[in-house]
């Protein structure tokens, strides 16, 4: 390993950073919107215990995108179709957490295998192959970026409109149903929104790494905050910083974007965990009686 090569790979583009940034500005926008929306959706992903579902959906989304690549139709459309099929199957068959996990466990390798099959059959530009699995936002075409942004904004609008019933249902489905919340519709609606945002994330950081923007920011936020406003806001901020920071760092060199995003997101989580642990200790020493429960 040559340190000069590493330096070049990481920071070789610095002298022309301004020009590169102008070229990829649309990618930065897409990353920014995905980071924000992914952070918000992530809060519910954790509350509803669906981290594994996110992973399952992303593998089928990958299969959809690979199929689209093979038959020569729009890749974003393919990933959305794959995502929605997975989300619908999981939402329909896996109402209970236990059933859900086994269904996802069944779907995930099937989706991944299907995707790999399609990619092997595809003999177009090979750069496209890995980018679906590990992401390469800067190689997404401008027209598609526009779509990714539009879809993310739609998901944002959707999640805000069902915010309170969704929160009620996530916390206490029985009381929510008693209070008149249409819990089945809410669950399916959330699966639909989740499917859409996962499809977007597949293009930006890749099917294998989707959780870095859909689970990690919310998990980090929940370590340091507890308010119903502070947790989503913090989570959205963490997602935004990870996605935008990752892209801005990556374009300084020739390395892919995804490792930057996953590393920033992970670092934020580690810091939040340490802060949370310290706070927990302080709280316990202040109120020994509470620790018992």
């Amino acid at each position, binding site marked *: 390993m040559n340190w000069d090569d590493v330096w070049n790979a990481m920071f070789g583009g610095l002298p022309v950073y301004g020009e590169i940034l102008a070229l990829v500005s649309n990618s930065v926008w897409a990353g920014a919107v995905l980071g924000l929306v992914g952070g918000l959706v992530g*809060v519910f992903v*954790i*509350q509803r215990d669906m981290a594994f579902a996110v992973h399952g959906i992303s593998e089928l989304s990958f299969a959809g995108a690979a199929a689209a690549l093979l038959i020569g139709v729009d890749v974003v459309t393919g990933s959305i179709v794959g995502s929605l099929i997975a989300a619908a199957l999981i939402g329909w068959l896996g109402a209970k957490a236990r059933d859900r996990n086994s269904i996802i466990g069944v779907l995930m390798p099937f989706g991944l295998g299907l995707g790999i099959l399609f990619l092997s059959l595809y003999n177009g530009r090979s750069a496209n192959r890995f980018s679906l699995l590990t992401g390469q936002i800067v190689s997404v075409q401008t027209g598609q970026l526009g779509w990714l942004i539009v879809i993310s904004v739609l998901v944002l609008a959707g999640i*805000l*409109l*069902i*915010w*309170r*019933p969704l*929160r*009620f249902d996530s*916390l*206490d489905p*029985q*009381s*929510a*149903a*008693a*209070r*008149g*919340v249409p819990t089945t519709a809410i669950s399916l609606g959330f699966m639909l929104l989740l499917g859409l945002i996962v499809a977007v994330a597949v293009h930006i950081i890749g099917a294998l790494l989707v959780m870095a923007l859909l689970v990690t920011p919310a998990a980090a*936020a*929940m*370590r340091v*905050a*507890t*308010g*119903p406003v502070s*947790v*989503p806001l913090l989570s959205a901020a963490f997602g935004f910083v990870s996605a935008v920071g990752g892209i801005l760092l990556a374009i300084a060199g020739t390395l892919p974007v995804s490792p930057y995003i996953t590393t920033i997101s992970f670092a934020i989580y580690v810091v939040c965990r340490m802060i949370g642990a310290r706070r927990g200790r302080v*709280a316990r020493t202040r109120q020994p009686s*509470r620790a018992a*429960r």
Partner: protein
Amino acid sequence: MTGDAVGAAPVLQIRDAALRRDGRELWSGLNLDVAAGELVAVLGPSGSGKTTLMRAILGLEPLSAGTITVDGRPVRGPGNRSIGYIPQSRPLPPDTALRGRDLVALGVSGHRFGLPVPRRGDTKRIAALVEAVGAGDFADRPVGVLSGGEQQRLRVGQALADDPTLLLCDEPLTSLDLANQQAVIGLIDRHRTQHDAAVLLVTHDINPLLGRVDRILYIANGRFTLGTPGEVLRSDVLSDLYGANVFVLRAGDRLVVVGAPDAEESHHHHEHGVLE
């Protein structure tokens, strides 16, 4: 609102109700009136359809036969503003992103679609509910670190959001210690007396309610018996209901039912298996 007749009408009226699940009849011919200010407890072994009865009153599940009216209006679907529902006390995950106050707030605005912006008056209403259930001291702490009793007080506050005329409580005291059981019952009872509300409460232990409960509906073996505690909690009555030798024993001021098939131990498992 228009004279004496309305005042005398029962808050909850169940007529000729029957419940069949998976081809099995849980019970039929159930008639029950609960008047304003009355507390009726529902007792019986697991799988006897107590929780399903609650769900039918809430409009979440249909009866196999019969009608239910609340405040004179037939039950059509969920979301009845006249009903407050208090669920079983299940501990919330420690990292739940809500403060105590927010749990109460779900009762006020948790069902509303649209941008999550509070309406005028919401904050005041929530503060009043928090005070009403004596949760002022812990309302701003994360719910996940609160004790089971504290969480259950907040759930009572949530259920009282619309000043319900009927309170449905499904095992509201499970896994609470005696002091918290009394605190939660006290809150339910205060709402009953102050607002002249009817209360229907499912429980597997009648002891915390003795002295407050007006009547008992005891369901077992596909049959039921309805009456005052003195009429129902007797060895001969329960033996007849179960078709087995059942003894009601007095230990100090507590009652113990001995010999009833399907005792409490298996309670939680079955309840979910059969009813959900």
